[in-house]
C-alpha cells in the first residue's frame, strides 16, 4: 500500500514539474513579444511627432520625417488590395461554392499551398522577371503591388474559403429551393453571412503585404526620393524598406529615428491585426447560426 501511495505521489510531482516546465516554455516564448512591443513603444514614442509623420527626410535621412515612406506603404497596400481582393475572394467562392471534387480542384489546392510556401525573396525575383522587365513596368508601385498581391493571394483565399464554408448548408438549400440561382445565393445569402470572416482574412493578408520588404526590393522600393510618387508607374519609398535602409545602409543614423520608424511600422501592422480580431469576435457574437 505504502509503495502505491509513493507511486501516486511521484506521479503528482512529475505532473506538477512537467506542467511547470511547459508553463515556463510558454512564458519564455510569449514574454519576449510583450517586452518587444513595450520596448518599441518606450524607445520609439519620443521620436514621434507631427513633423516626423508629415515631414520629408532631411540631412541624408538623419533628420526630418518619414511621410514618403508612410504614404508609400499605404499606396502599396492599397495597390495590393486592388488586385488580390477580387481575385482572392473570387477564387475562394469558386473553391467553396462551385468547384467539383476532381483532379483540377486538387491541382488548384496544391497550387495555393505552393504559393503560400514560396519564399518572399523568390516573389521578388519573379516580380522582377515578369512585371519589371518582361511587361516593362519598371521598378514601380504597380510592379511591386502586383508582386505583393500574388504573394498575398493564398492567405486571402484560404481564410475566405473557410469563412464561406462556415455558412451552414441549409442556407444554400433554402435559397435554391426558393428559385435563386447559384450566383444569387452566393451574392445575397452566402457572401453577406461570411463577410466578417472574409474581411478578417483580407486584412491579415494585407498586413503581411504591408510589412514585407524582400518582394519590393527589386520591384518598386526606392532608397530615397525627394518627391512623392506621381503615378503608379513611379517607384516609391516604403516603411519596411526604409527601416532596412536606415538601420543598415546609413552610417551615423540617430537611434531615435530608427526606433520611431520601427514603431510606426509596428503600429501599422498591429492596428490591422487588432481591427481583424475585433471584426472576428464581433461577428462571432452576432452570428445567426
Amino acid at each position, binding site marked *: 500500500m505504502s509503495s502505491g501511495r509513493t507511486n501516486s505521489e511521484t*506521479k*503528482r510531482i*512529475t505532473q506538477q514539474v*512537467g*506542467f511547470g*516546465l*511547459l*508553463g515556463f*516554455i*510558454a512564458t*519564455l*516564448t*510569449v514574454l519576449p*513579444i*510583450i517586452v*518587444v512591443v513595450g520596448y*518599441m513603444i518606450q524607445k520609439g514614442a519620443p521620436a514621434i511627432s507631427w513633423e516626423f509623420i508629415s515631414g520629408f527626410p532631411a540631412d541624408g535621412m538623419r533628420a526630418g520625417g518619414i511621410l514618403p515612406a508612410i504614404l508609400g506603404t499605404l499606396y502599396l497596400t492599397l495597390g495590393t488590395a486592388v488586385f488580390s481582393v*477580387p481575385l*482572392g475572394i*473570387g*477564387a475562394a467562392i*469558386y473553391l467553396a461554392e*462551385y*468547384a467539383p471534387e476532381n483532379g483540377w480542384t486538387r*491541382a*488548384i489546392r496544391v*497550387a495555393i*499551398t*505552393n*504559393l503560400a*510556401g*514560396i*519564399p*518572399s*525573396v*523568390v516573389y*521578388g*525575383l*519573379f516580380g522582377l*522577371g*515578369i512585371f519589371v522587365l518582361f511587361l516593362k513596368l519598371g521598378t514601380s508601385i504597380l510592379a511591386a503591388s502586383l508582386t505583393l498581391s500574388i504573394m498575398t*493571394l*493564398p492567405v486571402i*483565399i484560404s481564410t475566405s474559403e473557410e469563412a464561406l464554408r462556415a455558412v451552414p448548408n441549409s442556407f444554400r438549400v433554402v435559397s435554391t429551393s426558393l428559385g435563386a*440561382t447559384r*450566383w*444569387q445565393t452566393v451574392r445575397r445569402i452566402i457572401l453577406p453571412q461570411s463577410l466578417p470572416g472574409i474581411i478578417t482574412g483580407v486584412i491579415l493578408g494585407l498586413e503581411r503585404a504591408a*510589412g514585407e520588404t*524582400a518582394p519590393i*526590393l527589386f520591384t518598386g522600393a526606392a532608397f530615397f526620393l525627394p518627391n512623392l510618387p506621381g503615378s503608379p508607374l513611379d517607384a516609391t519609398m516604403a516603411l*519596411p*524598406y526604409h*527601416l*532596412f535602409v536606415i*538601420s*543598415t545602409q546609413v552610417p551615423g543614423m540617430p537611434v531615435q529615428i530608427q526606433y520611431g520608424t*520601427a514603431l510606426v511600422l509596428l503600429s501599422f501592422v*498591429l492596428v490591422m*491585426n487588432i481591427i481583424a*480580431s475585433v471584426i472576428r469576435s464581433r461577428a462571432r457574437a452576432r452570428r445567426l447560426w
Partner: protein
Amino acid sequence: MKEQAPLPERIITRGIQAAGYSSILFVLLILYFLISEGAPAVFEVPLKDLLTVRWYPIEAYFGILPLLLGSLIVTLGAALIAIPAGVGTAVFISEVAPGWMKEILKPLVEVLAGFPSVMLGFLGILIVSPGLRQALRLPTGLTALTGSLLLAGIAIPTIVSIAEDALNNVPRAYREASWAVGATRWQTIWGVTLPAARSGVLMAVILGVGRSIGETMAVMMVTGNAPVMPLKWNALFSPIRTMTATIASEMGEVATGSTHYHVLFLIGIILFLISLAVNITATMIVFRRPKRSERILS
C-alpha cells in the same frame, strides 16, 4: 430540360472560375520566369564550378556551397530553438492553460506572426547581436546564431498555431479513456494526446522550420554577410551568408542578363524547389493512410 442561366450570371460564373484557376497559372508563371532567367546560369557556369566553396562574383567565382550550408546551419539552429518552444507552447495552450490564459496567449502569438521580419532584423542589430557578443564574448555579434534566434521567432507562430489545431482535434474521448484507466493528465499528454496528434504536430514543425529557410530580411541583417564555408565547430557563432540574403543584397547591383544575374535566379530556383519539397512532405504526412487502429478509434 435544364434552363440556361441568364448571360450576366454566366459571365460571373466564368469570372469566378477563372479566379479559381488563377493560382495554377501563377505557380506556372513563377516557375517559367525563374527557369527562363536562371537556367542560362547552368550553361555559363559549369556545374563543377557552381559546386565549389568560393562565392566571389566580382571575380566570377560562383560557388554556391557556402550559401547553401549557410542557409542550412541558420535553419538548423532555428529548429533547435523553435521546435521545443513552439510545440511546448502549443501543448501548454491546448492542454494545460485555463481558458482565460488561452485568450491571452493565442492573440500574443498572433502578434508575433504579424511582426515584419525587417523589424525583427532591426531589433536583432540593436539588441540581440550586441547582447550575444557580450554574453558569449564573441568578436562579432553578427553570427549564424543571431539569425537562428530571429528565425525561431518567425517559425514559432506557425508551429504553435498548426500544432495547437492538431491537439485540439484529438477527440476528447481519447483523453477521457486515458484518465479513466488512472493515467494522470501529464501521462495522458505524452502517452495519448501527443501521439494521436503526431502527424499534425509533425506538419507544424515541417512547415514552420521549412518556411524559415526562405526568410530573408531578418537573416540578412544579422548574420554578418560572410559567404564562407561554415564547417568548423564554431560555425554557429561565426558570420555566414544565406541563399536568401545573397539574392536580396546582390540583385540590386547586377546587370540584367549577366552571369551573376542568372546565378542569382538559379539560387531562386533552388529556394523554390526547397519550398516545394517542404510542402509536398507536409501534405504527404496529412494524407497518409490512417492505420487500422486509428480508423477504428476515430
